[in-house]
């Protein structure tokens, strides 16, 4: 085999430089971190057996439902105030069960800041109507109060489609609140699609939890 000289000598440095194949050396983008986070009222999951505590009293229903353990322990409306216990220390419990006369207090309804949806749907359920009516009433009575309604979807389906689905859900809540007394300027919406699941699981229960609208008071929050 005869020695062959290399017949082609490319100056590839030129080719590489001219090719628009940029190496991304250098500075990372300095982007100021957004500090907005969706605030959700935490649901208390500790069990509390202190008979004076808000949560226990709620369950026993001494003639009405307690205000759940908010920091300043104000008794709120609701036709039969049960005995207000001292607060559970870490904040709100789930909705108290009905007390003797079976009525759920306004305070408890206002404490619910989540509504949920069926798969690929933005329809509200009857339980949601009750909750939202309380918020609508509160908003119409407190014109300086404002809410952000954040719509979410479960992880199934594509991202941008889910952005649209989340928006549909937020809009459904917004429309309901509006037609029940809240003013348009009190209501703001955003969709997070499937970007911010509240549950990282991959099963029906997790998906059901993620299909939601979160109600966050940006001003004039109910006490």
């Amino acid at each position, binding site marked *: *085999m*005869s*020695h*062959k000289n*290399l*017949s*082609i*000598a*490319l*100056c*590839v*440095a030129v*080719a*590489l430089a001219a090719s*628009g*194949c*940029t*190496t*991304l*050396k*250098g*500075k*990372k*983008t300095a*982007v*100021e*971190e*957004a*500090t*907005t986070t969706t605030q959700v009222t935490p649901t208390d999951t500790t069990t509390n057996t202190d008979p004076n505590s808000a949560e226990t009293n709620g369950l026993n229903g001494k003639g009405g439902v307690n205000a759940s353990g908010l920091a300043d322990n104000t008794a709120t409306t609701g036709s039969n105030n049960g005995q207000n216990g001292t607060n559970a220390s870490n904040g709100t419990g789930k909705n108290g069960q009905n007390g003797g006369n079976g009525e759920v207090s306004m305070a408890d309804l206002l404490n619910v800041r989540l509504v949920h949806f069926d798969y690929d749907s933005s329809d509200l359920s009857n339980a949601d109507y009750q909750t939202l009516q309380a918020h609508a009433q509160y908003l119409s009575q407190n014109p300086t109060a404002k809410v952000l309604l954040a719509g979410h979807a479960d*992880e*199934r*389906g*594509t*991202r*941008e*489609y889910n*952005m*649209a*689905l989340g*928006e*549909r859900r937020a809009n459904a809540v917004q429309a309901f609140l509006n037609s029940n007394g809240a003013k348009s300027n009190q209501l703001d*919406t*955003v*969709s*997070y*699609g499937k*970007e*911010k699941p509240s549950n*990282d699981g*991959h099963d029906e229960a997790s998906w059901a939890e993620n299909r939601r609208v979160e109600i966050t008071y940006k001003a004039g929050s109910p006490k």
Partner: protein
Amino acid sequence: MMLRLLKHLIALSMLITASLSHAELTIDILKANNNAMPIAVVPFGSDTATEPLNRIISDDLARSGLFKPAQSFPEQPTNSAEVVFGVWQGLGLDFVVVGKVTPDANNMITIQYELVSSSQQKRIMGESMTIPPTRWREAAHFISDRIFKQITGMDGAFSSRVAYVLQYKREGNTRYRLEIADADGRQPNSVLDSSEPILSPSWSPDGQKIAYVSFESGKPAIYIQTLSNQQRQLIASFKGLNGAPAWSPDGHKLALTLSQDGNPEIYLLELANKKLTRLTNHYAIDTEARWFPDGRALLFTSDRGGSPQIYRLDIDTLEVKRLTFDGSFNGRGSISADGRYLAMVHRRSGQNFQIAIQDMQTGGLSTLTDTPLDESPSFSPNGQMLVYATRQGKQGVLGIMSLDGRFKLQLPASDGQVREPAWSP
């Protein structure tokens, strides 16, 4: 001279080692192609780099699914004259790549390579290039592209890149980063790092810019960022949704989704004068617009027919035509550069969202994956492979596969969830 080169290579390998500790996508081949062609890429003479050229080239060729590179070598010739054809033929290795590395003036490196055929007993091609040490991997990918093209006749995609979103935790907080890595998952660079979600990266046709959706202001907005200098422009932050940006093939327009008129619709934005034109007019969700290669039509996802399906929208006539009929969900469509295939997220029955391709001529649909939740299919620039988002256990990872789904590999990230891949043009 040699000492200086050695110092350079040591510095280079330290740089490489340092960047390896930063999260990089690593490669696991899941399904090999049994018809892969054997090839030997012999270590190049005087190549003492931590990442030798022959290793990078071998990995590239293996990743295409079409080649099976040798792992050991009976001899190590550095030019075609030194190759003893009988030795390689005896091992069933027809194609042999040999080469060498020599230092050059001004701290540059000269790389020579040759491709020989042991069955034809001759040299097929050879080239030489002179590069700065920082372009080491680029040079290897370039050689891979050349070898690939010479043997298969098809363009290689080894010099291309993939943009993707990484969701990770820092001190207990979830953060999001838009990154661009080489097509082999190496050398990731951060485009945007944020405490709020990032979605839908889209490359400009010249590969110089990326459009994306960012929640950094609290609401979704569309930005365009120039990759060479990281400068960016806010393009759309209308009331409601600002989503799914897609660059036109001529680079002058963006298709995007806005809901400012009351529900999500497809709009066209002219980048030069910011003129906005609404294209769809329906109360259903219309989103996820992508361009047909001739620039005259868009495909998009709509649930106007009762379930999310993919439609074609003619830009001149605004006529809408449904393209998908199989399955309860078809979305996130993408057309190959030759217009031949439509890749999509497809759901037939049960719970699985899989990647499928539809032949645009025959309408025939093939499901390519069988993992439960796959998304974001994106064609390689040579149209032969798809990158997509999938899951390995609980972790979001990227997959790459051939168009018939028979060759698959995964690129798992080491420190987070990876998704939303977009292959560069």
